[in-house]
């Protein structure tokens, strides 16, 4: 082992790891980031190919599921429960932002205080207003398209670029929302519609989940990482951490990892930050066992891996007479509604959900549920290109029975125990999804849909809650500054630190938390030893 005198070791180079590393690198901190994947060659992205949709239907380098990609740097995730979660993540510089849609809403202030307001789950130990400056700063760093002034959310500064176009399907949904007099607004996106800083604006190709070689989508390999590296931060790719080590006093000492050649290396640092997502983080903590932490690091109360949240979802479609061209345009969401976001006890459930217009994939995906045989062409021509997607993203409240554990049998390519994710919908979520189904159908019908298709519930694969933040050490894993309660120099900064899931996409909150945590780590620099 080399004596490298590293101040901060960051594990994971995705949304959180990138923002946090950049922020600390601005202050001159000596940082190393270990990332189990590599830099993604933009010329290999499936969005460059017309048959990109095959990445959804069978094994391939860019399948959304690590279980179907089979890259060496991926690790298996087995699933269980009444509603086994679909798993989407990416292991590379940029992390899951590589195939993320770029939808960039913020939590509501009420999302941080659900115990106080609604008597459910727990309050976060921080408020919206603690995060607001970081949300705003992050927007300026990466460039967000949208319009400020939404009455369903607190005021926010002028968006860096104008909104992405609504397209025919978006405009059709607007008619429905207007007819019903319901709230709607254009979505914020981490996709720039015009040139911003050194990146070109979106050209509307619409394959965002299959990589954006243009760089219009704010993947962190194109936003934060180049700046962090210019500041002197180091990123070690193809470096998979096996465990975090501790000294005799219980302080985190460093990490043992497999390097690109499969050799075991050890690295030491004064501060360690885990940014491996809501599955990777508990997996690493649970794999970091020692005599002081026999059940895994930070797990003295048994909560590491508990309270796994994924955002229950419904992908509802309306079939229209007219051509809707729902597959044309940026793949994310042209507009959303928070009409049913805040708690209304008369609805019979706590918290609420977001409805958002969602563009469809191409014809291969849309053919998936079309029957084979004589009626195939007739049914296909009814739905293509006549579909409009309206997605339900439901607030996910923590349940201790929804978990990420170590799989007892399966290991990754380095022999490290894989993760096992277990998820069942709560009664509250089921009631919420029933309500949302009716409301989504109402909008689609008001928009002119002749038929509404409601598939079974699924989830958004937003990986959250497994190292939750809280003021009470007995009921949480990290404190209000993302520091692990029982380890003075270990931090967890990613979706796993969410106390509740809220009813919106998580990435802007993950990045805001990362920038805030970087400041909190820096404030305590005199305690680094």
């Amino acid at each position, binding site marked *: 082992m080399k004596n490298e005198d590293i101040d901060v070791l960051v594990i994971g180079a995705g949304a959180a790891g990138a923002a946090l590393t950049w922020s600390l690198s601005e202050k001159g901190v000596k940082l190393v980031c270990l990332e189990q994947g590599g830099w993604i060659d933009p010329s290999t992205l499936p969005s460059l190919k017309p048959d990109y949709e095959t990445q959804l239907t069978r094994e391939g380098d860019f399948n959304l599921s690590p279980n179907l990609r089979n890259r*060496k740097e991926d690790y298996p995730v087995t699933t269980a429960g009444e509603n086994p979660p679909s798993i989407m993540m990416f292991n590379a*510089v940029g992390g899951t932002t590589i195939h993320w849609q770029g939808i960039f809403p913020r939590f509501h202030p009420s999302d941080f205080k659900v115990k106080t307001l609604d008597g459910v789950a727990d309050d976060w130990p921080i408020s919206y207003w603690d995060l607001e400056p970081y949300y705003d700063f992050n927007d300026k760093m990466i460039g967000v398209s949208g319009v400020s002034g939404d009455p369903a959310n607190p005021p926010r500064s002028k968006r860096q670029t104008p909104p992405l176009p609504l397209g025919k399907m978006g405009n059709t949904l607007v008619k429905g929302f207007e007819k019903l007099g319901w709230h709607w607004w254009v979505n914020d996106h981490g996709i720039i519609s015009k040139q911003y800083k050194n990146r070109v604006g979106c050209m509307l*190709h619409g*394959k965002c989940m299959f990589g954006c070689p243009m760089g219009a989508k704010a993947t962190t390999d194109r936003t934060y990482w180049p700046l962090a590296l210019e500041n002197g931060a180091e990123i070690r790719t193809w470096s998979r951490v096996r465990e975090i080590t501790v000294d005799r006093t219980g302080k985190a000492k460093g990490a043992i990892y497999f390097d*690109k050649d499969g050799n075991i290396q050890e690295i030491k640092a004064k501060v360690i930050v885990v940014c491996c997502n809501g599955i990777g983080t508990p997996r690493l903590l649970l794999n970091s066992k020692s005599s002081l932490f026999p059940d895994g690091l930070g797990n003295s109360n048994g909560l590491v891996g508990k309270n796994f949240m994924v955002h229950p979802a419904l992908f509802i479609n309306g079939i229209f007479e007219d051509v809707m061209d729902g597959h044309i345009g940026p793949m994310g969401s042209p507009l959303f509604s*928070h009409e049913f976001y805040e708690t209304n006890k008369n609805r019979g459930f706590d918290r609420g959900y977001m409805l958002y217009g969602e563009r469809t994939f191409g014809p291969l995906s849309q053919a998936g549920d079309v029957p*084979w045989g004589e009626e195939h*062409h007739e049914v296909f021509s009814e739905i293509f290109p006549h579909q409009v997607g309206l997605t339900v993203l439901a607030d996910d409240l923590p349940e201790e029975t929804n978990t990420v554990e170590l799989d007892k049998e399966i290991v990754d390519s380095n022999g490290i125990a894989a993760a096992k994710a277990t998820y069942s919908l709560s009664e509250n979520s089921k009631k919420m999804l029933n309500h949302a189904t009716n409301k989504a159908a109402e909008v689609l019908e008001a928009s002119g849909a002749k038929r509404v298709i409601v598939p079974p519930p699924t989830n958004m694969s937003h990986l959250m809650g497994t190292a939750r933040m809280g003021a009470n050490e007995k009921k949480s894993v990290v404190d209000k500054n993302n520091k692990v309660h029982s380890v003075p120099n270990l931090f967890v900064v990613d979706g796993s630190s969410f106390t509740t899931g809220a009813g919106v996409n998580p990435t802007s909150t993950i990045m805001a938390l990362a920038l805030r945590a970087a400041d909190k780590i820096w404030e305590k620099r005199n305690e680094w030893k």
Partner: protein
Amino acid sequence: MNNKNKWSRRRFSKAVISAQLLLASGALTLPLACAKTKKSESDSALDSSQQETLKFAMDEIIPANEKMPSASDIGSVTYVLNILEKLPDLSPLFQSLTDKIEVYSLQNSNSIFSDLNKEARINLLVNFEQTEPELFKVLKDFTYESYYTSEKVYELIKYEPYPTGTLGPKMEPFDEKLLNRVKETPSMYTKI
């Protein structure tokens, strides 16, 4: 990508700069990946009788009608053969698929699948779907995949894939006047 083909930060930066310039120009047009015919029967993972079975089965999954071609009309068998050339591990799966269809056909009708009449072929596949769901799914998924990645089908269904690197679609910019009503509504979020 695997560890043998690693990208360094420097290579990544160079590629990003050149790709942005090229892609932003819209000048790059990439060839369609689908339905290129290059295999002959003699060097295929499936022999001619297996290919015949696959062709007839795929054509019952997606048959022709007055407007649309059948699966084999757009080269679905060749598509599968090309995949098997790239992914030879899949060959036993397709061999098993075609062989099992023939076993079913002989058991039920004492005839090879391609000699059955259309109704009998459909009945056999309905039965096959129930008794061999995983193998049937392979047949259906690859038939759909070959069909809906075909340039010819794209033209017929008027689908323009707009691969990144070509000029994107024309879309009207967002008209902020659409938000006038919502802008006038009182704030809806819980203030805390």
